């Protein structure tokens, strides 16, 4: 080692590493809990003390994706033998998979999950896209009442969503937007737009206007300069904003619960609705939650480089 380090520095450094490890463990504990429960046999899910070591199984995921009913009598041994491995697991649990003819009836989870994807992706694209254009306008042009307009945009975030949920529901029902994808998308865009505009304005302000001016002088229109120069330069900011908007839309629960019930229902209100009556099946719920966590994790992971630069980029003045 070229750098000379005193022993106290080494101790401090090790202490910092330990502290970070402990913090990481604390933050990851709930995720481990959900993830492990998703692979546990039913009886172990509620055991006290919690089981840490167990034989993992994918039965909860099978239950998550299928429609099932309790069996009144024991299974016909021939049918049991003919069944594929995952169906046997269901039989083992005293249930049978519902079928129409030979087609397995899927549960509502894939639909709800798809709804979540549609609503979150479309609303994120719209919110970030509109936010980027709006922020560019605010950043580059003299706009009468700019400060007031920006405050107005921000003020849409000042009320807790639940306060406006009931009036929104009545309005939506009147215009037939309730329980529709487009209704939920409009809501989420409206909700995320203020955030997107403000965040993107910070990023836009950081891009020197000489970049576009150079392009303007070099024979490009402002629109071309925007797409060829500003957008690539703002990529980091766009990625960061997109992650935040996506997470907000993906996790949104209150509006989704009130505004949707069947066709357009997203995963967040659907997952707890499975608790149902009787003994809750925690492993199936955990499986649903576990899968629900994945898109955000993947999305964030893919954009991690942008994100790391992005969240500090807007804050530091050169």
């Amino acid at each position, binding site marked *: 080692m070229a750098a000379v380090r005193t022993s106290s520095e080494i101790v401090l450094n090790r202490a910092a590493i330990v502290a970070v490890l402990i913090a990481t463990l604390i933050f990851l504990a709930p995720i481990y809990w959900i993830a492990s429960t998703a692979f546990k046999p039913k009886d172990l899910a509620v055991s006290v003390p919690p089981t840490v070591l167990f034989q993992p199984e994918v039965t909860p995921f099978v239950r998550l994706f299928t429609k099932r009913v309790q069996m009144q009598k024991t299974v016909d041994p021939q049918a049991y033998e003919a069944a594929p491995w995952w169906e046997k697991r269901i039989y083992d649990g005293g249930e049978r998979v519902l079928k129409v003819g030979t087609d397995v009836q899927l549960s509502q989870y894939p639909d709800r999950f798809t709804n979540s994807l549609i609503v979150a992706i479309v609303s994120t694209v719209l919110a970030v896209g509109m936010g980027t254009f709006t922020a560019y306008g605010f950043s580059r042009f003299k706009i009468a009442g700019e400060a007031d307009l920006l405050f107005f945009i921000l003020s849409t975030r000042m009320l807790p969503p639940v306060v406006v949920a009931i009036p929104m529901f009545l309005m939506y029902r009147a215009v037939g937007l309730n329980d529709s994808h487009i209704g939920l998308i409009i809501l989420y865009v409206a909700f995320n737009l203020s955030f997107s505009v403000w965040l993107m304005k910070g990023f836009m302000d950081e891009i*020197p206007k*000489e*970049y576009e*001016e*150079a*392009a*303007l*002088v*070099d*024979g*490009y*229109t402002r629109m*071309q300069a925007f797409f060829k*120069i500003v957008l*690539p*330069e703002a*990529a980091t900011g766009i990625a960061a904003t997109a992650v935040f908007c996506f997470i907000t839309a993906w996790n949104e629960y209150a509006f989704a619960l009130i505004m949707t019930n069947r066709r357009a229902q997203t995963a967040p209100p659907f997952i707890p609705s499975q608790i149902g009556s009787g003994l809750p099946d925690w492993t199936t719920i955990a499986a649903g939650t576990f899968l629900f966590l994945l898109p955000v994790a993947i999305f964030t992971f893919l954009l991690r480089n942008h994100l790391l630069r992005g969240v500090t980029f807007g804050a530091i003045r050169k």
Partner: protein
Amino acid sequence: MTQIELRGIEKFFGAVQVIHNLNLAIADNEFIVLLGQSGCGKTTTLRAIAGLETIDQGDILIDGKAVQHLKAADRDIAMVFQSFSLYPHMTVFENIAFPLRATRMSSGEVDKSVREIARVLWITDLLDKRPSALSGGDMQRVAIGRALVRRPKAMLMDEPIGALDAKLREEMRAEIKRLHVKQGSTTIYVTHDQIEAMSLADRIVIMHEGFIQQVGTPDEVYSHPANLFVAQFVGSPVMNIAEASVTDQAGAATVTVGDAAAGFEFPRALLSKLNGHAANGGLTLGIRPEGVLVRRDAAPGYLPVEAHIIEPLGSFDIVDLQVGSKMLRARTKAGYVSGPGEKVHARIDPEQAHFFDTASGKSLGVRL
């Protein structure tokens, strides 16, 4: 062939007028430097020519055609910015090719043009790099390459080397000059650095508070400043400025600086050239430090003075000489005056003296 003419340009920022009735004709292939302090309107003038700023009054003519209503893109002018404005997400090659991509040039021709300009600028080996990997000087070369590559009608440069450190500035100054001589294009260059202006310009336009103070060759603005502002702005070390009175004594004119007891001898012709200005006061003398001649021993025409502060500047010293209550800065050989308090003798070289009207600041145009 590109001539640029500015006619009666006026520009307001809100209620503030930043350019006042600006008129300027720039010849083909001329290297014009707009020189002035920040806020004097020089950058605004440049941006107006580029089309990045609208003007409120007047005409901008490029080759006789009014362009003030044209968009920047349609004026066929290139601009180099102080911040270089290289696009970080593009390679050096793509940065230089960028203006060509706006045209219908084939990619083969683009490639050829970029390599040609890169060769002229000695940056061929940088073409695949990203701007962030370049030094300040190379960034500027690339920025100049991007401006030159499409052979624009005119080059505008807004403090292009202002962001570089002193040594690199000097190098780049020489290089810009070399390029201009080699490529030859009508160039308008904005700077607040008078050394840059002197060394680069065919003609210097000195601006102050939105007004043109003087237009002239470097020699003209240095040797014959039109007013006190130009006199003090151009030249380093700064010109000595002092109120003076001129009297007719024993067949010679005597110029007394401030409240000094004795005066400096001048040729008698000064009296007639001042044309009465001497009598009614309000006369200001300007003399550059090299126009203050210093001797150790007494000589006819030399006044005894005392040296105060001595600034050694390497090849020469700047010595403050007390004349009455005023300090006159003189340029001497290094070490010529040994230290503060030394008694020396000084004279003002009449040929290098400038006389101004104190009230208006205008030069009286006296040349001896």
